[in-house]
């Protein structure tokens, strides 16, 4: 095992603020939609908190966007766009999580600071960050002030369409979060990846040959 510095400090701060914001959004969103079924906080407070959390995550998103777009780090998100290369890589990754991991095979993907996401992650995060998140912010802002944005709402098919898209996306986020939280535990130990996101260092298994070299060295 050796450590490599994968997550720079701004990324870690961004990640945990985002995590906090998203959890708050899911909680308040559920409270708004299911008031009466459970009442941890009042409907009004849930709405107010949801709005603030939405803008907070939105602002945080913009920080992420600037950080990645104005540095060369955006490359970590770029998936392999050549289908001939991408699909076999993707298949290998899916195969690993579905079967290889059970048998104790090695993760086919090797983490490096320049390419810290496996093909599955890169594609998923790209969709989440560049499609789902902006769409969720947009529908959220329309719902936040549906009077001022009445023209756009009507053009897009009405309030009910916007609300439905917002809810569908939030269901997708819940599904994503559950998968994310589970996959986080599949490092070499239960908390390894979480620790990595706190310290910035991921512990990476040595390549068999290099580990021999290291042992000899």
């Amino acid at each position, binding site marked *: 095992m050796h450590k490599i510095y994968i997550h720079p400090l701004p990324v870690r701060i961004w990640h945990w603020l985002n995590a906090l914001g998203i959890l708050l959004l899911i909680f308040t969103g559920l409270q*708004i939609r299911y008031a009466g079924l459970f009442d941890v906080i009042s409907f009004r407070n849930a709405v107010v908190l949801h709005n603030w959390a939405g803008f907070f995550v939105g602002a945080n998103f913009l920080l992420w966007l600037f950080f990645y777009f104005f540095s060369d780090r955006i490359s970590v998100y770029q998936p392999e766009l050549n289908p001939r290369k991408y699909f076999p890589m993707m298949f290998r990754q899916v195969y690993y999580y579905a079967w290889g991991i059970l048998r104790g095979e090695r993760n086919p993907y090797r983490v490096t600071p320049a390419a810290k996401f496996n093909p599955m992650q890169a594609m998923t995060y790209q969709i989440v960050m560049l499609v789902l998140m902006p769409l969720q912010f947009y529908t959220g802002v329309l719902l936040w002030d549906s009077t001022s944005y009445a023209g756009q709402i009507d053009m897009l098919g009405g309030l009910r369409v916007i609300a439905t898209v917002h809810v569908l996306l939030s269901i997708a986020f819940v599904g994503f979060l559950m998968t994310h939280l589970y996959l986080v535990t599949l490092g070499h130990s239960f908390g390894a990846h979480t620790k990595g996101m706190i310290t910035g260092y991921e512990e990476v298994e040595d390549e068999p040959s290099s580990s021999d070299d290291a042992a000899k060295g």
Partner: protein
Amino acid sequence: MKNPTIASRPWSLLLAGMVALVLAFPCMQALAQDEDADEDESSEAIELEEEDLACLECHDDPTLETKLESGETLSLHISTKDFLGSMHNENSCADCHYEIDIEDHGQGQSTITSKRELGVSMADACVDCHKKKYKEYNDSVHALLIEEGSKKAPMCADCHNPHTVKSWEIAGPEEAMPCGKCHEDIFKASAKDVHGLARNDKENPGPLCSGCHKAHGVKAASLGSGIRDTCLDCHKDAAEKHKVWLPNSERHFEAISCPVCHAPNAQRRVNLRLYDGAGADKQQMLEKTGVPQFIKRAKAADADEAGLDDRELLGLMKEFTKDVGVGKTVVRGRLEVSSGVDAHQLADKSKAISDCKTCHQSGAEPFQSVILTMAGPDGRPLRHEVKKEVLNSLFSIDSVKGFYVLGSTRIKLLDYLLVLVVVGMAGGLLVHITARWLFRRAREKRAAQARRDSGSQ
């Protein structure tokens, strides 16, 4: 030589005083007589013309009446005292009753067929002087009802007895409001609500009927944004005050009528109104006189007559859209109270509903009753029942696209989808965890083998 002054001769001062008193006496007497005359004038300030007195000679008789063709009995009594106290006391009888020929008046059978006909024919006389009011009236729901052939909608004299009508300023609130004659239940309800109770308040009097509804230009209260703007005319800071605590307050102002929250004991419902076309010039659909398409179509669409369901509503909307041609017919939902009586039970603002959950939760009371409406030719809504489940159906995403209330009108299918995703994901992950546990031996063996292999190298 020094000139003598009055002051230097006290006797002459006394004499002058006595002379002044003697001279002043008749003047004082005359003044006292004028005051008496004024008093007389205050009760009968207007002198009636000879010909008017001639009319009243017969008509100031409480028993004077005539039988009309309609079978009604028309009282012909005009009280001189009441007439003199009325706003019309400077008019002569002939100003309004110019069609009467004095030669044959009172001879033979009356040509008036019914009270209604008399009211309609006499309205022309009112218009001669009250042109502005008549113009307002012509645009009112009352005038439109008469145009439709209503025999009950009021003409001028139904609200204002021309022989006794008093100035708005001196008539008491009750007298100034003839609305109760037809709208008795609403009138009674209103007398007990927060406005009605303040009716006689000198400092801050509550509004009379016409204060909110306009006396002559009265429109159907449920048309457009109802009388919300009238509420805001007096409660000028209401919008700002709501903004402080009510998220999305503009939307609430648009989609909820004021009494929904301010008449806490009222019964509430959802009104889905039909609107013409799309775009900024959307207009509430108004049915044309003599074309009963809404009632006919809604009945035809509602096969089981238990209210329109989601698919029936969608079908009906498509039918209306075909007619319009340009843009789609859309519905705009609005929360309102169920009746005029409910709308006139306004409570003190401390009792107004401010608990969001009154509306924002599944099964909330206002969403248990849903109606589809189109404005009738007179502006009053034509209604058809809609099943409440429409508000939670996926099929309503297009038909009821403009009405969405957090919590209470949520699409049920999305709830199932959320459960499916959460349970499906949790199940999948559980299967994965179980499989990892079952394969732990195989992994250990493989790891041991790997260690042996690396050891042997």
